[in-house]
């Protein structure tokens, strides 16, 4: 009886984990990179709103038609703007966004270098 229970639980967990960690479909992969515009802080993948469900249906339809990942992102960007993708393109509008953290990092490094080396030499 004990053995039967054990087998049952093992089988249960095998199937369960298969569902959780099973191979991600292409639709999941793409929808994880898309922001659900009407639900705050959720991706299209996470959301169960009508909007998100429609986008997921559209993605699978477009994939069936043979569109590439790039095509789908471009299509949605043309409809909803850059905001729908989590990773923004590098262009003149997003220049500050991309460059500023780098500048901040360099400035911090500069401060550390000054503090450690230049001051250390004096002593």
């Amino acid at each position, binding site marked *: 009886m004990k053995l039967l229970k054990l087998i049952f639980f093992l089988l249960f967990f095998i199937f369960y984990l298969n569902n959780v960690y099973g191979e991600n479909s292409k639709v999941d992969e793409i929808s994880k990179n898309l922001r659900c*515009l009407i639900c705050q802080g959720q991706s299209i993948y996470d959301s169960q*709103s*009508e909007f998100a469900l429609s986008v997921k249906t*559209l993605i699978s*339809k477009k994939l069936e038609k043979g569109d590439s990942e790039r095509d789908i992102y471009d299509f949605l960007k043309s*409809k909803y703007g850059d*905001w729908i993708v989590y990773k923004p393109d590098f262009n003149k509008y997003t220049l500050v966004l991309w460059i500023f953290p780098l500048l901040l990092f360099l400035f911090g490094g500069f401060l550390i270098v000054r503090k450690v080396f230049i001051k250390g030499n004096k002593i």
Partner: protein
Amino acid sequence: MKIRLSFIFLFCLILFVAFVFYKSLFDDKNYAPKNINNKIENISIKEFYTDKNFYLKNLFEEETLMAINIWASWCIPCRQEHRYINKLSEIDNLKLVGLNYKDKKNSAQMFLRELGNPFDIILTDTDGTKSIFLGAYGVPETLILDRELKIIKKYIGPINSDIVNEIKTIIK
């Protein structure tokens, strides 16, 4: 020297952050994308009663503008805005198209029987994908298109008497 430099930097940073926060106080909270492609592809959508496919451009007769209202019987704000949609139907030179969004046919027909059918033609979007081609977020939403299928105006959410008046001025 060292203290002063970091002080100036900190000061600038605080000033910058304060400026950003202050500015966003007055921003419109509704997100509306700028510089997007405002032109809709000439897609074909199924008609509500007959299931025949219609191309958007072919819906125009002598009208110069088209209003597409996306609605569903399960959507409460659609119920509230319906009397304003009825008013839109009185405007000349405007093709009033209804797009039934993810709805059951029976409930949609009940909705129209109860509140009236102001639409010149009703199209149906069973899985919501056609609405994405229109750049729509959900229901209710009203779009004003010209003959080239360019979006002239987009109203997210239920329309009211102010918007009806605004649409009247757009057409004149």
